[in-house]
Structure formats: structure tokens, C-alpha cells
């Protein structure tokens, strides 16, 4: 059975993959689906959904179109979340590989560092970081990543530790490869799977953290994100609940589809490893 078939085996997996594909398509096609600046004032403020078909999902307090903000918001939310996940996995896998392969004091120091980051509520550090740098998309990505690299690092390290005494590592040593070269070229590819299967969890968490940051007013003001839409809609929560509900539903669907896809992939991976 092919890998893709396995992922799609269950109803959950199918829902996740289809939903996620749809979201990604919308995000990629945003400039064509909703041309122009999504922050532009397009009509009367606070139109309700379906009230004016020029703005099918209504407008916000300044008269900006909710549908086009939603579409562009998908783009930013996913971009920020995926970048943060890539950064977190990148840092985590690198740290884990170095620590696991070199061992000794390097391992000790790096794992202490991971422990320090796990001991301090990462969200507090992220808040402090963003207040230093100002809320820009890049620092938000970095801020989310510094709170999420520890788990991938640990898992990679554990995997590397179990692999480093294998024959092919010894063989690589014999032909004179340098330790880090062995670590990254020979061992890491074999140890990647468990860390990468964390990707879904990290992306999902990143979507939620980005939303929470925007909600607290630490979003990038030059871009629309679903979190900033909720924060903006919150002041009119009772009067125009759709302004918070629509992006909220977007968030839930995104996190849900990422999660379900992730579970499907993890299940397929397990089966694949058993076979291999």
C-alpha cells in the first residue's frame, strides 16, 4: 500500500488532508482570489455577512472586507506557523544531532540549555523578545521557535544515541569521515522520522501561539492574521460577533486539519517503519 493511501486510510486522515490542501491552496492563491491590499478600506464599516454581496462575509470596524482579510490571513497564519515549525525543527534537529553524536560535555551543555528553555515558560520569553524587537513577522517566527525546539532536540538526540554505535557509523569512521559529517550525512537521515512526525504538532501549536500573540497586541500591524482579526473583532464581540467567529473558525479548522493530517502521517510512518 502506498504511503499516501495509508495516510488517507481513515476518515480523520482524509478530512485532514483534504481540508489542509484546501487551506494551502487558498493561501497560495490569495493574491488572485482577493486582489489588492486586504487592509484597504473597501466599504461601509460593520456590514453584516450577506448584507451586501460585494462583501459576502461583511466588513470590519473600518470597512475592510472580511473575506479578503480571511483569505490573506490564511496566507500569513500558515506562513508564520510553517516558518516557525521549520525553524523550531531546524534548531531542534541540529542541537539534538550534535548533542547525541558528540556526547560528553557538549551533550551535557546543550541538554542543560534545553532544560533551561523548558523550565522557563517560553511564552514569557517570546513576549520579552517581541517587546525588544517590535512585532514583526520574522521576530514572531523566531519567538515561537525558541519555545518549541526542545522537544525535537530531545527526540533527535535519543534517536541518534540509538544509532551511533551501528555498523554503518563505524564504517564511515573507518573511511575517515569527520564526526559531524558522519552525524549529519550518515546518522541524521536515519534519525529524522520521529522528529519530523512532530512537525504537525509544532505547526498546530505555532498557529495558536501566533493567534495568542496577536490577541495580546503583539501581531505585525502591516499584515492580516486571524489572531489580529479576532483581537480587532473582540472590541465589538457582542455587536458584531461574526468578526471574531469567522477567523476563529478558520483557526480551529486549520489546527484541526494539521493535527489530523499529522496523525495520519504518523500512523503511516509507523506502519512503513515496521515494514522496512
Amino acid at each position: 500500500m502506498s504511503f499516501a493511501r495509508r495516510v488517507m486510510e481513515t476518515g480523520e486522515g482524509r478530512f485532514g488532508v483534504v481540508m489542509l490542501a484546501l487551506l494551502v491552496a487558498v493561501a497560495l492563491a490569495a493574491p488572485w482570489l482577493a486582489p489588492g491590499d486586504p487592509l484597504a478600506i473597501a466599504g461601509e464599516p460593520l456590514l453584516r455577512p450577506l448584507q451586501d454581496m460585494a462583501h459576502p462575509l461583511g466588513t470590519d470596524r473600518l470597512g475592510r472586507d472580511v473575506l479578503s482579510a480571511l483569505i490573506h490571513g490564511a496566507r500569513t497564519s500558515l506562513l508564520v506557523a510553517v516558518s516557525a515549525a521549520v525553524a523550531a525543527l531546524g534548531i531542534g534537529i541540529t542541537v539534538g544531532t550534535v548533542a547525541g553524536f558528540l556526547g560528553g560535555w557538549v551533550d551535557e551543555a546543550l541538554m542543560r540549555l534545553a532544560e533551561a528553555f523548558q523550565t522557563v515558560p517560553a511564552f514569557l520569553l517570546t513576549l520579552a523578545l517581541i517587546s525588544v524587537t517590535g512585532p514583526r513577522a520574522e521576530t514572531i517566527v523566531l519567538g515561537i521557535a525558541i519555545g518549541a525546539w526542545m522537544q525535537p532536540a530531545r527526540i533527535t538526540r535519543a534517536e541518534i544515541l540509538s544509532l551511533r554505535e551501528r555498523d554503518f557509523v563505524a564504517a564511515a569512521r573507518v573511511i575517515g569521515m569527520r564526526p559531524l559529517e558522519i552525524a549529519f550525512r550518515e546518522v541524521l537521515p536515519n534519525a529524522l522520522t520521529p522528529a519530523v512526525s512532530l512537525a504537525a504538532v509544532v505547526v498546530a501549536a505555532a498557529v495558536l501561539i501566533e493567534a495568542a500573540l496577536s490577541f495580546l497586541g503583539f501581531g505585525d500591524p502591516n499584515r492580516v492574521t486571524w489572531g489580529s482579526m479576532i483581537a480587532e473583532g473582540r472590541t465589538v464581540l457582542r455587536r458584531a460577533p461574526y468578526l471574531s467567529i469567522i477567523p476563529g473558525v478558520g483557526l480551529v479548522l486549520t489546527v484541526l486539519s494539521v493535527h489530523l493530517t499529522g496523525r495520519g502521517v504518523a500512523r503511516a510512518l509507523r506502519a512503513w517503519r515496521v515494514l522496512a
Partner: protein
Amino acid sequence: MTRALGLLRRRLIGVVPVFCLVVVGAFLLLEAAPGDAVDAYLAGIGGGDAAQRAALRAEWGLDQGSLARLAAYVAALLRLDLGWSTAFARPVLSVVLERLPNTLLLMGMATLLALSLGSALGVVCGARPGSVRDRAVSLAAIAIYAMPGFWLGLVLIVAFSVELRWLPSGGIETVASGLTGWERALDIGRHLVLPVLALGLVYMALYLRLMRDGMAELWSQDFVRAARARGMHGARLVLRHVARNALLPVVTMLGLQSASMLGGSVVIESVFAIPGLGRLASEAVARRDTPLLLGVILLSAVVVMTVNLVIDLVYALLDPRVGSGTGG
């Protein structure tokens, strides 16, 4: 007992470098922030002239270099002096200790809710993996997990305090109520229902999944099959063999999540206007109160480490196979 002490010592030795990293890192981070405590203070009082600015900087020691102040801070810390909060004009220790109980209460109740409800529902699902009941509950849990906590909080407030008026909309207790004893405890309890739900449900969903997945896997394990072959079945099998073993990863996760839960309480405390450590931390950042932020971070780290220590000990009790070589 000796093993527990050994574990404790190992942990405590590990703590010192971690603390040093945290203190230096957070100090330098906030130092690099644009604007200082005087800017924050002047904005709050509507401005001030050059002489006033200079006088305040001198009074708060901000006219000295970062490193000199870091050295002074660390020296004071060694005497267990957390410094002076410029934002509150009081010693940091008294400010943070005042807020600690509220946060501990919120976190403790949320953990209790997440753990009890999560593992109970997890057992329900994991007892018969793949059943309709399992799939329905699991899907509901993952939907809750996908919900931002602050959003859930907003919805709960509108529904239960504004519309139905069953529960208060925020705060930790009725202000200046004069209540004492059980009446006060009840009052605090009523105030905590909504924030605990908003904070705890997400973790409930997490523990439910862990428990359920763990149990689903255990069913195919040899010792479970053996127990079945011996004729054990029903609730006894589920609880004694499967659930008990599936609880271990949940307990581990509990420790790992304590820091994240403290972070989550920043948002929940701000939605529900609860005077806790989380809200204090964002105030400290906004007012460039470096000693206060460090105080909150250090205290949070102490809380997280204590929780983890307790969990290590509990874990050792739950699973006799665990030696002192784990952790780290």
C-alpha cells in the same frame, strides 16, 4: 527514599546553571529593549522635563551601565534579594509572592481538571479503540485542542456570565466582600470555574489523546494478552493493566506541560482579569521593570522545577522499574 534524595540532589545541581542562564539571558534581553523604566513611567504620568528624567534615572540606577547593574543584581540575588520593582515601588519579592497563590490555584485546578477528566475519558475511549464512542469523543477532544484558549474564554464569559449570569465575569474573588472561611472559598471557586475551563480543557484534550493512544497500543502487548489468556477481562483488565501503564506517559507530559501552562495563563489571566503571575509578567515587560520580570521568571522556574521534581517522585512510585538514571 535514598533514591528520591539522589534524584533531588541531581536535579538541584542541574538547576544552578539553568538559573544562571535564565537570569543573564533575560536581563540582557530586556536591557536591549528600546526605552526604559523612566520612559514607561513618564508616559504613564503624561510627560516630564529633562531634569526630572535625569533625576529618576539616577534614583533607579539606570544611569549606570548594563553590566554593572547585572553584577549588582546577581550579587543581591545571592542574598536572596530579588530587587526593587520600579513599576510598583515595592520590593519585587513581595509583589510576586502576592500574585503567586492566584496563579498556583488557577494552574492547580486546571491541571486537576485536565488530568482527571482527560484520563477518565481516555480510559472510556481506550477501553474499546475504534468504537463509535471512541471516535466521537476523540474527535470532540481534538476539536477542543484546536481551539485557542483565549477564544474559548471569551465565549464562556459571554455565555455564562453576561447572558446567563450564573458565574462572575472575571477577578479572583468578589472585591471587598468581607467574606471569610468556607464562604470565601466558595466565592473564589465560583470565580475560578470559567478560567479553569478555558485553561484546562485544552490540556484535558491532550491527556485524553495520550491516554487513549497509549491504551490502544497496550492492547496488543504481550502482558495484556497474557492477562487475557488467564481469563482476566472487563473493567479489571482495563484499569489494572492497561490504564495504569498508559498513565505513565500522561504523568510525564504533565511535567513537560507545566511551563507551557504557566505561559498559557498569561493570556487567560488577562482575559479574566485575574491578578496572577502571568499578567504581572506582561505588565513588567510593558513597564520595562527588569527586576520584576526576572522575579516572575525565576519564580516560575522554581514552580516548574518543583512540579517536575514531584512528578519524578510520583513516577518512581508508579513504576518501580524507573531508576535514578532517568530524567535530564
